[in-house]
């Protein structure tokens, strides 16, 4: 039931409800009264299935955490912190950074205000590092490359998940020359702007994110050459650009409401390896993701793909993966013996 019938019921009801609504409206417009009763009955059945199957998928198969965060707004005003030495004093501007820091003792977000002088090139990360070096060394941030490669500086700027090192301050200031920074609440929080990626990586591992050959000897000591055509490569290339920044999980409304859902990053990687002609795990991969908390958890909100800084398009990858799962359940054509 859990694996095969539920997705079928869910998807067939999503198609059936609009279909019967449409037929009812057409029969009403053309005054075909003899159609009313059978179509009302079908609509009633499909609405009941819609409610039950979607309700089970959304509300029963999730075990959300009971922790409740109270966003207390008692402001710890630290406005004394003004950074003085900045490049090109003429073109600088003082911006108020409203940083919501996660207080791990009180288990709540606390608002701290910092005034930082920025120029037109200053990124959010640079500004926060200035705060840390010059006015408040207790501020915790995670970062490394400062060039959008390592994926460690994810946070929310004005409520939107972004890489701090790739986000320009002046392009994002709001009225009153203010900018709002907070940790990614779509991940468990550790301290200030630092979030915990243990859950993220365990989900990543759950999709077997590596190429698998049937012949283990060959897998670990390859003798053959695996040529791939442009077409072969283009099937998985964009999905292999992932830098594991976690922005997609923070943006995903399903992850935010159901932590059990594997999420866009893991599932897009599931598709990336499935689509690679060198991989031989075909059907087993589809089995792995054929579950309510895997591909069937995705509601195609698409927010993950908008947030992704590398153009991985996880939402697209998940729909392609769903289609492969469905196709394989119906006609069993997973490419196992490539």
């Amino acid at each position, binding site marked *: 039931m859990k694996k095969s019938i539920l997705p079928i019921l869910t998807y067939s009801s*999503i*198609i059936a*409800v609009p279909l019967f*609504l*449409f037929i*009812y*409206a*057409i029969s009403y*417009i053309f005054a075909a009264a003899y159609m009313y009763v059978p179509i*009302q*009955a079908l*609509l*009633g059945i499909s*609405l009941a299935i*819609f*409610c*039950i199957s*979607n309700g089970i998928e*959304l509300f029963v198969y999730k*075990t*959300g955490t*009971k*922790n409740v*965060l109270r966003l207390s707004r008692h402001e710890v005003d630290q406005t004394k912190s003004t950074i003085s030495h900045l490049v090109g004093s003429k073109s600088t501007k003082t911006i108020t950074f409203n940083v919501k820091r*996660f207080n*791990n003792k009180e288990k709540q977000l606390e608002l701290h205000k910092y005034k930082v002088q920025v120029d037109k090139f200053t990124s959010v990360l640079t500004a926060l590092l200035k705060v840390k070096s010059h006015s408040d060394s207790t501020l915790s941030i995670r970062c490394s490359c400062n060039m959008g490669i390592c994926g460690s500086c994810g946070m*929310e700027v004005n*409520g*939107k998940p972004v890489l701090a090192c790739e986000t320009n301050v002046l392009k994002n200031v709001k009225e009153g020359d203010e900018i709002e920074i907070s940790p990614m*609440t*779509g991940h*468990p*929080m*550790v301290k200030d702007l630092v979030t*915990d990626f*243990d859950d993220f990586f365990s989900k990543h591992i759950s999709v077997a994110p590596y190429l698998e050959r049937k012949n283990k000897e060959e897998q670990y000591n390859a003798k053959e050459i695996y040529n791939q055509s442009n077409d072969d490569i*283009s*099937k998985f290339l*964009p999905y292999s*650009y992932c830098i594991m920044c976690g922005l997609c999980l923070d943006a995903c*409304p*399903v*992850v*935010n*409401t*159901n*932590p059990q859902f594997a999420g866009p990053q893991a599932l897009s990687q599931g598709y990336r390896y499935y689509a690679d002609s060198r991989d031989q795990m075909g059907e087993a991969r589809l089995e792995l993701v054929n579950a309510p908390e895997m591909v069937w958890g995705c509601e*195609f*909100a*698409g*927010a993950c*793909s908008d947030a*992704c800084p*590398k*153009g*991985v398009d996880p939402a*697209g990858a998940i*729909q*392609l993966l769903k*289609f492969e799962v469905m196709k394989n359940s119906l006609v069993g054509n997973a490419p196992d013996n490539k």
Partner: protein
Amino acid sequence: MLEKESFDVRGREMNLLKTLNYDKEAFLHLASFRVLIVLSIFMSAMFFANILFGLFGGYIKAAIVLAWLLITPQLYEVMKAFSLITSGGFAFGKMNKSFLDLMREKTNKLSYKVLVALPAIGIIIWIAVLAAFIAV
């Protein structure tokens, strides 16, 4: 050694509101879907009460309009997903720009353009039929 402690605020339906900051379409789609899940059981009961006991006859049209409006965002996304799958991820996909430049010949085909237009055409027909239904 200090144990790592983390605090998780995921798992509440209220978190959907967060989506309003960066993706209003996603919010509309998910919120209307959840409302419809709850309402659909009452609507289903209403249809059967109407068929079996002739009750709620006057409210059927209003229920149809409500269900129609609530399922519209979902239907739009289903059509988008159809176009996306049929085009191999290109139509409505948000793939890396430099990769898409290399794949330009795929996104210039007529079939691609038809797939991109499909959801909009579908929704126009869908809304037009609703308007006619309300007007009759």
